């Protein structure tokens, strides 16, 4: 269990150092020192991501969630700390529209930031649960088969837990170009993979930025850093800048189709031209898929040919069934 430390993202000049959970005495010296340095320098003196208050998500102050989850996590403090250990309590808090469908085909979901995400798939649905060990765990062969399937044929990933932000306004490009290490003043329809750096050149965020129109950007980052990344950009918007940052994580689900056969699979489902000449890497546009209009971004997380499909939430099940 990790304590809570650092500058509160919601309120300037407000710091937190609490929730020490039986390690207060052995941590107090270090905490006093880093809080002092943090206050004086305006930034943490070292990598303190694991205890930074910005890891917390708004829903986690829900008291029912807290009561049930801490009753388990406190006990786990002294239990064997298996790799990939999942919680039993307070599960199913954030579920993509595909949750039930994927569970029906053998998904073993793990949890990050409240999101249920398929970590691996079992061939028999009733075996889709972790058997913990310090050695090779029961999912290993299934992950190997998945790897080969994606590498040789095609696979489907539910990446709905991606944090997604819209950054819009006449000054959006200028502000974003100041925050991003890479140049994002690109033509609409281009995707830029970039980092957000601090004043010391250290990486604060690692994400993609897609220019939708001249004054409209879609930023996609990890589920775990939703709060942290949102506040980093928010904090760097000048007060007189004409732009608005909106969290649209819940507005879209993401289905990723990856593998050498990705184009063949998707082309059979859309009249739009997905050929390499017509749809190059790091480009993004709307396409028709099934009955829906989805944003298809040709980018990859796994090193294969493929597209991330950004689908308005209510269309997701239909697209999946297609």
């Amino acid at each position: 269990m990790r304590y809570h430390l650092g500058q509160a993202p919601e309120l300037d000049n407000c710091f937190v150092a609490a929730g020490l959970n039986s390690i207060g005495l052995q941590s107090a010296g270090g905490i006093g020192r880093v809080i002092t340095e943090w206050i004086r320098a305006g930034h943490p003196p070292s990598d303190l991501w694991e205890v930074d208050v910005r890891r917390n998500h708004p829903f986690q102050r829900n008291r029912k969630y807290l009561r049930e989850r801490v009753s388990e996590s406190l006990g786990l403090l002294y239990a064997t700390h298996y790799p990939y250990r999942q919680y039993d309590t307070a599960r199913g808090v954030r579920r993509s529209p595909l949750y039930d469908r994927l569970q029906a085909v053998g998904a073993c979901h793990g949890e990050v930031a409240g999101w249920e995400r398929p970590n691996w798939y079992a061939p028999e649905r009733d075996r889709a649960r972790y058997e913990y060990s310090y050695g090779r765990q029961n999912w290993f062969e299934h992950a190997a088969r998945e790897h080969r399937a994606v590498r040789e044929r095609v696979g489907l990933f539910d990446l709905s837990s991606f944090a997604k932000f819209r950054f819009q306004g006449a000054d959006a490009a200028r502000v974003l170009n100041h925050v991003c290490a890479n140049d994002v003043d690109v033509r609409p329809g281009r995707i830029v993979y970039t980092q957000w750096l601090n004043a010391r050149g250290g990486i604060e965020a690692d994400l993609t930025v897609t220019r939708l129109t001249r004054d409209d950007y879609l930023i996609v980052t990890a589920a775990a850093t939703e709060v942290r990344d949102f506040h980093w950009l928010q904090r760097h918007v000048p007060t007189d800048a004409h732009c608005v940052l909106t969290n649209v994580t819940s507005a879209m689900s993401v289905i990723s189709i990856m593998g050498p056969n990705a184009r063949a699979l998707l082309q059979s489902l859309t009249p739009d031209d997905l050929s390499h000449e017509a749809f190059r890497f790091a480009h993004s546009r709307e396409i028709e898929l099934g009955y829906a209009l989805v944003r298809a971004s040709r980018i990859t997380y796994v090193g294969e040919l493929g597209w991330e499909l950004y689908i308005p939430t209510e269309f997701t099940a239909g697209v999946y069934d297609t």
Partner: protein
Amino acid sequence: MATRLPRRASVIVIGGGVIGCSVAYHLARAGVADVTLLERRQLTSGTTWHAAGLVGQLRTSINMTELARYTSELYLSLEAETGQATGYRRCGSISIATDEERLEELRRSASMAKVFGLEVNVVTPADIAARVPMLHTADVLGGIHIPSDGYANAVDVTNALARGARAAGARLFENLAVTAIRTARGSATGVTTEHGDIDADCVVLCTGMWTRELAATVGVNVPLHACEHYYALFESVAGSCATTTPAPTTNTTRAGSSSAPSNPTPAPGAWRASPRTSVSTRSPAVSSISSRSSNRPWCASRRWSPRDSRRSSAGPRVSRRMCAITSARRPNSTTVSWRRG
């Protein structure tokens, strides 16, 4: 009190436990002027007062281990610096394993510790028995020994930090409750107390169990929920250190881990024992506790005060000897730690 209350501070630290006092200490010692700490009752009266006092250093990452190691180093010098005894003893710690997977976990953490530059020795059951003679080691598979771990008196450490903070110019107020955090234009600007407002450039919430509620008043999210810990209080144990007790449960699944001071001579020390380490107790008082119902915590579940010497619900007259038991969700993983009071 009202006349002495400052009208402004550079940094207001809310909460006078070990964390708040350490923050005030470090700020003041770094040369930050006008540091003000506000504690609504007495220093340590939140949750610091009942800390078991263990000062371990090995954490799951190099940066966290570095913070813990710095803390240990600080406690070494705190008494000389402030004139306030801390009770800090660098007796070392031993974490033991009674099943293979726990042993694997301990071995991995020892490997990590080597990378972090923290001395950790993998030890055999024979090593452990030699270092902790009263420990029953028949079911111990091995463990790790961290020579620079130790224990301290949490209240004394906090008072030492408070002294050091005051000596460096910080002002610490007890019996002064913050009733609100003041804000303007998206920034904290100070606090309101029972005796008036204080402006500040910065506010630090070191309010332990109460942080979720206090932070929520200004829209800051700190997901915390208080949990009970249990205590057992024992008679003085004849002879050397108190021994471990049999598990209060009959569950036969795998045990938890435990740790014990590695001081070879029986001496006061903080240590824990696995409920599966079936050491026979030397104290009749302890035996009678351990024979109680397996599913209920076998000790006083009421709030314990350092000056309390009434009978516990377990029966035997309590002494200042204090036992802290952390009860896990599954009773078989209860671990026990105690120290001589």
